[in-house]
């Protein structure tokens, strides 16, 4: 019984593959109804399933396959023409076979599955009057017997395992003609004889009729056979085994690296040669193992023709499918992960992208839309595109919808790039479809597509030209297991940064290139624009180092650009990604771990969560609050720019009551606070230099400059070193600061200027300033 189980298992696996092929062939057959090759191939595949199911005593499966085979034999023999209806019925039959197989797989029985309704449909199709063969319509049963006997004439072809092999063989006639050993016309007439019922093999016919030499025929037969042996030499391998091998090769690479290093030190030339040879063999082995995990993308595309056919038929659309680059290879596990997102994109393109035939004609296109699947390599990645020639995305509508859903503010729209607006469709719950169909339009999906692709380290984007179509583009790493990465030093540890996120590297020498600070928030001017910096040591909670002789890695993640400050950039290398223990998932900063060249474990940084953790997220709400605090209405904001130590701090001018200079000796102390008498009041002072932690040199003047702020009969004074200027600032250039006491930084008059959080400063001077709204303040702070 054990053995039987195994046989059934193999039968199931093989049949599933055959069924996928049949699906594809049937869809192609619909396009070229005259292709005898296709019909024969489908016929053989069904016949194999029928034969094996009979052998394994799955009688219902056999019955269904038999019915399908009968219909096919009529197509093959030209008794009945290939029509879309026949294709539909045959596809139904294949689906029936699939559900029986699924049932066998699940509970070992085929009894539950309904096949009768399908068989009735098949018979109806066979009995249907057909123009090309009105006379010859013998009873289906009799017809069904015929193909079996035909197949039995060639015993080799009837054996299930050998079936697919025949596909790959070049036909004998072809070989003979190519070799000049037979005339094309003779071969054609011999083939005709076979079709008409001659049971002899092609070579036999040619020989017996003296149309070819025995030697030539036997040579041709031999040249046929090597192809067979290639197919026979393919075996199925458990993916787990490959993974294990992969890991072991990874280990071998490490051991080799260590050995080579050791051997180099000994300087023994014989040993060095052996070590180099070992190195080469190891690299080749690694490459070989990698290759075993690669599969052409065709693997997941193969189901799509059927999906498109069914969908376009049900929607009344006409869609031609073009596949380019189906041989492009991807790591197996990635293929699995890409499958669903890709199917979703294809369904979406058929449903929403490609228009109805009438609409297409109205807009001057052909009634048939084209859906193009394209896969190609691009710089260590594989790009997969789903392109349609439909109406394109309606950018205005997306923008409008995004505003309605609160994803964008109306004033953001005019400044946005078209592509950025289009990218809103990847937001959860976003749908612009005016009607919800059972296919798509419910607003679920695109965000899932994005999440799934990003989970495997890929990216998704969309571009569209109105009236010309839409291109969805997935960028996928070649393999999950190995990534191209930069190793960097930070503190005394080595970290790994995936290279896909790295845009450029900048060395900070402290002179021509330097880090500037906006109240402790480091920034760098990258070609005139402020690049927010994240110090890796700070982000990791390590001891913070200096700013000279360090590197900035300009990184891009989640559409945000920032600079990561590290001590040293070492080199780029391919690293094998190891999953990190689940207990570290919560930290979020690490995408995984790897074994470095020296055998130590290195942590792979998760660039996007690094960006998030460092509060680089565009927190629009906070920005809004800041704006409301800073100014009453819209328009540009007038700022009082002051100098505090070496920094420039801007204070919204409309919060300023007066600018004053006090003699230094008028400052008195009340408790731990500094105060000054001012217009009969006690005015609390706060030194911005202390508040913001700018411990520059205190100016040794006789007076201090203060900015007085009053509200509700109370006043406080903010002490600055110097009043610099009054400037206008548009809010677009600012970004959020990472420190308390500030609401952000901006470039004002070509200098990095910090925007003071006035409320915060006032509270520092007088904690009871807003005593009426104390509760609110507590919540906010």
């Amino acid at each position: 019984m054990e053995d039987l189980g195994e046989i059934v298992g193999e039968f199931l696996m093989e049949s599933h593959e055959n069924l996928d092929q049949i699906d594809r062939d049937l869809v192609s057959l619909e396009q070229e109804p005259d292709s005898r090759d296709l019909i024969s191939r489908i016929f053989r595949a069904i016949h194999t399933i029928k034969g094996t199911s009979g052998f394994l005593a799955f009688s219902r499966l056999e019955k269904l396959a038999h019915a399908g085979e009968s219909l096919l034999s009529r197509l093959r023999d030209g008794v009945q023409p290939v029509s879309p209806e026949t294709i539909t019925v045959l596809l139904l039959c294949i689906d029936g076979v699939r559900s029986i197989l699924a049932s066998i797989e699940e509970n070992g029985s085929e009894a539950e599955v309904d096949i009768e309704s399908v068989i009735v449909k098949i018979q109806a199709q066979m009995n249907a009057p057909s123009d090309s063969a009105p006379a010859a319509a013998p009873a289906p049963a009799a017809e069904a017997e015929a193909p079996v006997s035909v197949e039995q004439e060639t015993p080799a072809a009837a054996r299930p395992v050998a079936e697919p092999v025949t596909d790959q063989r070049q036909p004998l006639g072809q070989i003979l003609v190519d070799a000049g050993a037979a005339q094309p016309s003779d071969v054609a007439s011999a083939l005709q004889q076979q079709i008409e019922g001659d049971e002899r093999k092609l070579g036999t016919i040619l020989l017996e009729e003296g149309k070819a030499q025995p030697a030539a025929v036997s040579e041709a037969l031999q040249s046929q056979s090597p192809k067979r042996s290639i197919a026979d030499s393919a075996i199925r391998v458990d993916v787990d085994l490959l993974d294990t091998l992969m890991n072991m090769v990874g280990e071998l690479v490490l051991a080799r690296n260590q050995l080579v290093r050791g051997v180099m030190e000994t300087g023994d030339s014989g040993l060095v040669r052996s070590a180099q040879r070992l190195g080469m063999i190891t690299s080749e082995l690694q490459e070989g193992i990698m290759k075993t995990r690669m599969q052409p993308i065709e693997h997941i595309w193969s189901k799509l023709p059927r999906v498109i056919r069914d969908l376009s038929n049900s929607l009344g659309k006409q869609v031609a499918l073009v596949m380019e680059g189906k041989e492009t290879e991807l790591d197996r596990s990635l293929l699995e992960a890409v499958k669903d997102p890709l199917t979703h994109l294809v369904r979406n393109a058929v449903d929403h992208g490609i228009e109805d035939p009438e609409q297409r004609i109205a807009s001057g296109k052909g009634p048939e839309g084209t859906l193009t699947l394209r896969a190609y390599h691009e710089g260590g990645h594989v790009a997969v595109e789903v392109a349609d020639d439909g109406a394109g995305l309606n950018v205005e509508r997306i923008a409008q919808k995004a505003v309605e859903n609160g994803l964008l503010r109306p004033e953001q729209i005019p400044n946005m790039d078209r592509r950025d607006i289009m990218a809103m469709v990847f937001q959860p719950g976003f749908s612009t479809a005016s009607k919800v169909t059972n296919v798509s339009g419910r607003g679920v999906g695109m965000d899932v597509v994005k999440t799934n692709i990003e989970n495997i380290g890929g990216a998704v984007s969309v571009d569209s030209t109105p009236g010309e179509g839409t291109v969805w583009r997935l960028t996928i790493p070649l393999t999950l297991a190995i990534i191209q990465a930069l190793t960097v030093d930070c503190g005394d540890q080595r970290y790994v940064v995936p290279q896909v996120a790295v845009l450029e590297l900048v060395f900070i020498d402290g002179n021509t290139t330097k880090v500037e600070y906006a109240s402790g928030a480091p920034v760098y001017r990258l070609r005139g624009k402020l690049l927010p910096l994240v110090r890796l040591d700070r982000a990791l909670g390590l001891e913070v180092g200096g700013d000279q002789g360090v590197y900035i890695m300009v990184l891009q993640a989640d559409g945000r650009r920032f600079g990561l400050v590290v001590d040293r950039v070492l080199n780029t290398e391919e690293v094998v990604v190891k999953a990190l223990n689940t207990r570290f998932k919560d930290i979020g900063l690490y995408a995984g771990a790897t074994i470095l060249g020296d055998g130590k474990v290195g942590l792979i940084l998760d660039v996007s969560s690094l960006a998030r953790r460092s509060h680089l997220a565009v927190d629009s709400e906070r920005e809004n609050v800041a704006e409301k605090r800073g100014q009453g209405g819209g328009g540009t904001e007038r700022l009082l720019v002051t100098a505090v130590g070496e920094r420039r701090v801007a204070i919204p001018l409309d919060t300023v009551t007066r600018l004053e200079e006090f003699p230094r000796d008028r400052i008195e102390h009340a408790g731990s606070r500094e105060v000054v008498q001012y217009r009969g009041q006690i005015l609390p002072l706060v030194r911005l230099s202390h508040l913001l932690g700018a411990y520059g040199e205190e100016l040794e003047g006789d007076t201090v400059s203060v900015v007085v702020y009053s509200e509700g009969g109370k006043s406080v004074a903010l002490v600055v070193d110097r009043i610099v200027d009054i400037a206008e600032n548009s809010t677009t250039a600012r970004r959020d600061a990472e420190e308390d006491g500030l609401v952000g930084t901006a470039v004002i008059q070509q200098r990095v200027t910090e925007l003071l959080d006035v409320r915060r400063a006032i509270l520092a001077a007088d904690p009871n300033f807003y005593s009426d709204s104390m509760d609110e303040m507590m919540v906010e702070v």
Partner: protein
Amino acid sequence: MASRQFATFEVDGQLFGVEVHTVQEVLSYNEYTPVPLAPPAVGGLFNLRGQVIAAVDLRVQLGLARQALQGPVMNVILRGDGEPVSLLVDKIGEVVDLDDDTFEPPPDTLSGPTRELVVGTFKLDGRLMLALDVNQAVDTYRATH
């Protein structure tokens, strides 16, 4: 009489034990990669034949100061739940066969972090062995006082 095998080890002079079947292997290793921002009980990561293993500092779990992690440190590698995890200990002891009747619940006087990690006490000749709750011992998110 039922008896169980325990792998024993010492931390801060106290003998601890875990059931032998929970242990994958015992080895000494000297290079650990620290994991910044990880819970304090995480001693670091190391490479066990190509597999990345997290080492949990049992000292921290017991409320003591961290292991210095300079020079070789003994690891008791537990099979864990699908992924092996290592316990950093001071010293490896013997594998002992213990009868169930030498077992007693932890003494009432035992308190603090150790109490939460221990399922009971085995009375050995001349000393006591505390049986660790393996899941608790490797739970680095357990509140450590």
